[in-house]
C-alpha cells in the first residue's frame, strides 16, 4: 500500500503539514514537473479484502502505470460527516488534483470541493450528482449476482437461498433481485430470504444473521456489502455455500466458496486520470459493468455442475457484449404485481433507483 495513513496519524501530521505547506506550496508552484497527486478517502480500514481494498488496488494499478509521475495518498477510517469534509478539503489544499471519495456519504462535501476547485477532478463512489469535474461511479454488481444466482440454484439442495445485507438501499436491493432472477432461470421455484442488518459494519450481527439463515434451511448465502469475511467464514463453518462482492474471500472458505463478483476499478481510474492529465475530463455518471472490464467473475466453485457452468459462461458472454440484461421482462414484483412487462428491459435510471423486490424474494423490505 502506498503511503497508508489513518485518521489519527493524519491529524497528527496535519498540524505540522499545514505550517510547512504554506512555505512549500509557493516553491512547488514554480516547478512544472511535480508528480500528479491522487488521494483516496475511504470510510473503512484498507484490509486484505473488501471495498477499500478494491479501490486502493485500482489506484495502485494507475500508480504503477505512471510511476514517479503520480503520487498516491490513501486516508482510511474517515467517518462520513463534517470530519470527512474537513479532511478532503485539507488534502486538496495540499495539492491533490484527483480526489477519489470512496463512500456515498462523502457526496455533498466532495461536490463542494469540485465546485470550488475547477482544476481538481473528483470521482465519487455510489452517488448520483454530476458536475463537469465530478463523476459518480458504481459497479453493476447485478450482472455478476445474476450469474451467481444461476450457480446457487444449481448447487442448492433445499431450494432456499439467503442474503445478509447491510441497508435496504437500491444498490443492494438490485443485487439481491438479480441474484433471485438468476436462480429462477435455473429453478423457477427457488426462494430467497434476506436479513437486513441496518448497519454497514457489525461482523457479530452478520454472523448471527448467517446462522439464522442456515437455521431456516438456506444453503447458499450472498454476503451483500459486508467488508469483513464474517459471513463467508461462518458459512464455511456451517458447511453451506457463500459468495461476496468486490474481492475474493476464497481463502476464508476454501471448501464452500461459490464464487466472487470482483470489481476491478483500474480501467475506470486509468481512463479518468488519463483524461485529467490530457485536460479532457468531463464528469458523467459511470455505471460500470463487464463491458468496461470493471465487473469480473472469479473463483468459481468446482461443485457447480458442468452443464450449469456452460450456461453461466454463455450468459456471461451475452451480458458482456450487451445482448442480455438480467432485468429483462416479464418480471413480477414480490407482491405479485407487474414489475417489468414482457419484452422490455429496465433502463439504467430504473435499475439504479429500484426499491422493490422481485417475486421469489420472500422476506419483506424494511420501510
Amino acid at each position, binding site marked *: 500500500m502506498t503511503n497508508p495513513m489513518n485518521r489519527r496519524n493524519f491529524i497528527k501530521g496535519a498540524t505540522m503539514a499545514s505550517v510547512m505547506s504554506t512555505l512549500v506550496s509557493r516553491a512547488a508552484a514554480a516547478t512544472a514537473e511535480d508528480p500528479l497527486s491522487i488521494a483516496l478517502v475511504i470510510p473503512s*480500514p*484498507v484490509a*486484505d479484502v473488501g471495498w477499500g481494498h478494491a479501490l486502493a488496488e485500482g489506484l495502485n494499478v494507475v500508480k504503477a502505470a505512471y510511476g514517479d509521475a503520480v503520487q498516491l495518498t490513501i486516508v482510511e477510517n474517515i467517518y462520513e460527516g463534517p470530519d470527512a469534509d474537513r479532511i478532503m478539503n485539507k488534502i486538496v489544499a495540499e495539492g491533490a488534483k484527483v480526489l477519489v471519495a470512496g463512500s456515498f456519504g462523502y457526496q455533498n462535501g466532495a461536490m463542494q470541493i469540485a465546485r470550488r476547485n475547477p482544476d481538481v477532478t473528483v470521482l465519487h463512489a455510489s452517488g448520483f450528482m454530476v458536475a463537469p469535474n465530478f463523476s459518480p461511479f458504481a459497479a453493476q454488481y447485478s450482472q455478476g449476482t445474476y450469474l451467481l444466482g444461476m450457480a446457487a440454484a444449481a448447487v442448492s439442495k433445499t431450494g432456499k437461498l439467503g442474503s445478509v445485507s447491510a441497508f435496504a438501499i437500491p444498490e443492494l436491493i438490485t443485487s439481491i433481485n438479480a441474484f433471485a432472477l438468476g436462480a429462477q432461470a435455473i429453478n423457477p421455484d427457488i426462494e430467497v430470504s434476506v436479513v437486513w442488518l441496518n448497519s454497514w459494519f*457489525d461482523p*457479530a450481527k452478520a454472523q*448471527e444473521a448467517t*446462522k439464522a439463515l442456515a437455521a431456516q434451511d438456506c444453503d447458499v448465502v450472498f454476503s451483500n456489502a459486508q467488508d469483513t469475511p*464474517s459471513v463467508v467464514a461462518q458459512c464455511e463453518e456451517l458447511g453451506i455455500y457463500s459468495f461476496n462482492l468486490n474481492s475474493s474471500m476464497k481463502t476464508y472458505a476454501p471448501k464452500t466458496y461459490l464464487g466472487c463478483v470482483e470489481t476491478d476499478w483500474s480501467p475506470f481510474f486509468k481512463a479518468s486520470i488519463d483524461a485529467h492529465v490530457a485536460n479532457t475530463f468531463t464528469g458523467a455518471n459511470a455505471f460500470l459493468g463487464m463491458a468496461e472490464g470493471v465487473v469480473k467473475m472469479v473463483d468459481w466453485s468446482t461443485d457447480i455442475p458442468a452443464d450449469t457452468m456452460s450456461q453461466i459462461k454463455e450468459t456471461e458472454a451475452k451480458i458482456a457484449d450487451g445482448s442480455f440484461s438480467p432485468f429483462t421482462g416479464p418480471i413480477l414484483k414480490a407482491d405479485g404485481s407487474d414489475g417489468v412487462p414482457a419484452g422490455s428491459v429496465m433502463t439504467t435510471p430504473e435499475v439504479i433507483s429500484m426499491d422493490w423486490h422481485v417475486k421469489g424474494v420472500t422476506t419483506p423490505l424494511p420501510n
Partner: protein
Amino acid sequence: MNAIEFILSGMLAAATPFLLAALGELVAERAGVLNLGVEGMMALGAALAFIVVYNGGGHFEGFIVAALGGIFVSLLFAFVALGLRANQVATGLAIGILGAGLSAFFGKSYESFTVTGLNQIQIPVLSNIPVVGGLFTQDCIVWLSLLASAGLWYMFAYTKIGLLLRAVGENPKAAQSIGYPVIAIRVGAVAFGGLMAGIAGAYASTVYTPLWADGMIAGRGWIAVALVVFGTWMVGRVFLGACLFGMLSLAGTVVQLTGLAIPSQLLASLPYLVTIIVLGIISSNRRLLKLNGIASLGETYER
C-alpha cells in the same frame, strides 16, 4: 430449526459479551465509580486476544492477555479519576477512546483475519431435549460467565467484601471513618471492571465472531453500561437483562425471516428504548432512586 429454537440456542452466547462487561462495570459502579470506557477496554481486549490466538497462543492465553490489557487501561483510568480526582465521566470517555485507538493500532496488520472459535460442549440428556436442548449446548466461556454471575451475586449478598464494596459506594466518608481504604477498594473494583471488559472483548473476537476488524465491538460496550442501569445495579437483574438483550439481538435478524411485519429497525433499537424507560421509571420518584441508585456514583472523593 424454528425461530424459537434458534433464539433459545443462541441467546446465551449472544448475551455473554454484554454480561461479562456489565458484571465488571456493575462492580465498579457499586463501589461508586462510573467508568464509561467499557467500549474501549472491550476493543483493546478483543484486539489483544485475537493477536495471541492468531499467532497460535491458544484461547486461554488470549483471554489472559486481554484481561491484562483491560486491567492496564482501567488502572490508567483509576490513576486519573481516583488518584488525580479528575471528572469520572470525562476521564472514562477519554480512556474509552484511547482503548479503541490502541485496539486499532495493535490490530492494524490483522485486519479481516480469522481464527477458529471454541467448541460447544454438549451436556448429556439436557442437550437432547427437543426445542430447549440448544440452550444447554454452549461453549465453556458461556458457562463460566454464568458461574461468574452466581459468584458475584453471592459475594454481594453474603460476603464481607461485597458489603465493603457497597459501603464504599454508598457512603465513602463513613467507610473511611471506620478505617477502610476507600481509594484502594475503588481501584480494585475498577481493575476488576477492566478485567471483565477485556475478557468480554476477547470472547467477542475469538469465540463469538472469531475474526478481527477494527470497530467490531460496534457499541456492545455501551450496551453493557446501559445494562447495569437497566438491572438497577443488581446482579440477578443484570443477568436477566443480558439474556433479554441477547435475545433481542438475535430476534432482530430471525424475525425478518419469519415474515412477521415487525420492523427490524425497531427490534434493533429495543434494548436502548427499554433502558431509557427503566431509567425514567427509577428516576421518577426520589424513593425509587434512593432504593436503587448508588449514592456516591460518579462523585469525586476526597479524604
